[in-house]
């Protein structure tokens, strides 16, 4: 229990640093934030008024405390461009993004772990070589390129799946899933490549351990022996999955753009182009928070896989 509390406590300083950096973002950018927000056509009076409205005339520490205070109260601010509260803007955009992220990662894990174990078991054979060639190709081909090829092939030529867009899960499972298949398969290729290589390397290492020889000397079959190996390889694999989720935040931006899905990724791009700082700040905080949370969960999961960490 103290272990869990310690791990949770360790995330607090990280989140504090993130909050300060995100807050300073608006001030680190060149020029007067108010002028930047007001745009090219604004007059001097407009900018001065905006500065007052945004509280930019206050001392920095005062601005920071007010901002933190509002965040704690659940107020993420208001989008400068659309005038809509950031919280409700995010709420609309979160479903597609989370759908893509979850489905992509699930698909990646389900495919890559068995594939990696198979490659390790058949190390050096043509099966292993084929898997590794696939991994290199999948890892080195740009996501957007494969995305457009998928759209052209499966959606336009074959007409099996919708070309672009997103349909909420509330409108039915199949419409939702059918819009997600291409973007998720597309995006998952990179993670399948990464995780397959990782699984192969780790399991191959473990297969040389003495206790694997013991397992074989007991008379266990191939599947049971590989099960023994996989349990011992779990920690590096789970860690890589965590790193993958962090990279996923970047990957989703590309996917959402290629497949015209109105998610958080698109929101970020639009907001950056519009200098919509409150939105950018909120998304940064959100994704940093998610990342920290996922890493915390992974840290805690180590104890499930390895009894030596519990001691």
């Amino acid at each position, binding site marked *: 229990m103290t272990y869990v509390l310690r791990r949770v406590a360790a995330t607090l300083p990280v989140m504090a640093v993130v909050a300060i950096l995100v807050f300073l973002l608006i001030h680190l950018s060149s020029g007067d934030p108010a002028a930047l927000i007001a745009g090219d056509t604004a007059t001097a009076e407009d900018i001065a008024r905006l500065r007052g409205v945004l509280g930019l005339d206050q001392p920095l520490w005062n601005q920071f405390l007010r901002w933190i205070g509002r965040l704690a109260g659940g107020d993420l601010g208001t989008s400068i461009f659309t005038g809509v509260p950031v919280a409700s803007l995010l709420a609309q955009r979160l479903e597609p993004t989370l759908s893509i992220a979850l489905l992509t990662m699930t698909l990646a894990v389900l495919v890559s772990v068995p594939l990696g174990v198979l490659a390790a078991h058949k190390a050096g054979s043509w099966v292993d070589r084929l898997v590794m060639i696939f991994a290199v190709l999948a890892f080195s081909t740009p996501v957007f390129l494969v995305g457009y090829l998928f759209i052209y092939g499966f959606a336009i030529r074959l007409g099996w799946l919708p070309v672009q867009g997103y349909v909420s899960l509330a409108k039915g499972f199949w419409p939702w899933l059918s819009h997600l298949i291409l973007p998720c398969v597309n995006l998952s290729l990179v993670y399948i490549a990464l995780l397959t290589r990782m699984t192969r390397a780790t399991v191959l290492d473990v297969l040389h351990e003495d206790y694997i*020889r*013991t397992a*074989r*000397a007991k008379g*266990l079959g191939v599947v049971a022996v590989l099960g023994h190996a996989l*349990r*011992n390889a779990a920690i590096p694999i789970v860690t890589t999955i965590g790193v993958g989720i962090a990279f996923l935040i970047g990957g989703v931006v590309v996917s959402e753009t290629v497949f015209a899905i109105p998610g958080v990724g698109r929101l970020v791009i639009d907001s950056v182009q519009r200098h919509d700082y409150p939105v950018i700040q909120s998304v940064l905080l959100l994704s940093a928070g998610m990342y920290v949370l996922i890493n915390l969960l992974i840290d805690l999961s180590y104890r499930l896989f*390895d*009894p030596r960490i519990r*001691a």
Partner: protein
Amino acid sequence: MTASRDLRDDPPLLEIDELRTHFDTLAGTVRSVDGVSYRLNAGETLGIVGESGCGKSVTALSILRLLPSPPARFAGGAIRFRGIDLLSLSEREMRDIRGNRISMIFQEPMTSLNPVLTVGRQIAETVMLHQGLGRRAAWARAVEMLRLVQIAEPDRRAAEYPHQMSGGMRQRVMIALALACHPDVLIADEPTTALDVTIQAQILDLLRDLQARLGMGIIMITHDLGVVAECCDRVVVMYAGRKVEEAPVEDLFDRPLHPYTRALMASMPSMAGGGSRLPEIPGMVPAPQDLGAGCAFAPRCAFTTERCRREPPPLTAVGAGHAVACFEAERVGCITAAFPLPFQTSPSQAGASA
């Protein structure tokens, strides 16, 4: 420890017949085991002795067919268990033998158990696999086996992980695991090498005690002649992938006829005078691919003649159950008689101090 040496005509429990295990490497074929024969009878302990790299472990791993292939390859010979050639069995049939009829324990108790599974589960897994017991019954058997290898509080210990146990206790767990299905043959590959001296003696005592109760034949692979003196009935001495001498244990210590056997004995701590530097065998075991035409030991041997370098000495019977592969065995035997060895008087004492 009663050897049934006189029952020559019965089919032996395990028979290694002209076994050749080769490894195909980029540097050429390595003949790790090159025409080795020995037999193990029920209830008997056979010692396999030799330096690192002499092929004794490869022989043992060959019996269970645990060597990765490639690079390992059986280039000839047979391994008969109760008359069945193990080399002709399918992988599926072989799995029914492993851990069930023939078991193995290894040198490294610290790394030979799976760190993420409880020891009880690791034992129960074997029993469930081979005897079709349910989860509960298998667990009960695991606890019973831990009690048999004299682990205190077996109920509690069964639920523990290997890292919670000492090296000696882990080797006891390995023994419990190996004997869980009451195998006919136990192959012990340097089972005490990684343990400290007091624990070594305990483990050997335990093995002897379990053999008396369960009646399995044991192949004891070791480089330690003290262990051999302590618990073996017969001994096979191996050098560079070949058997160079075989004898009943008293006979071997009484009258070692191969210069290599003699050299091994001379380099034991209890053989040397107190305080002086231990005599060592000059040179190293030649790499199997570097062997010349003659006797593999010739370059390191004090008795070498022209003939030794020219042709390999054949294995020759020199007494009841005693065979040696050396042209100069007679000369070696004379010298041995001039230097009586302490084993003649008290083998058990010599074993304990090794």
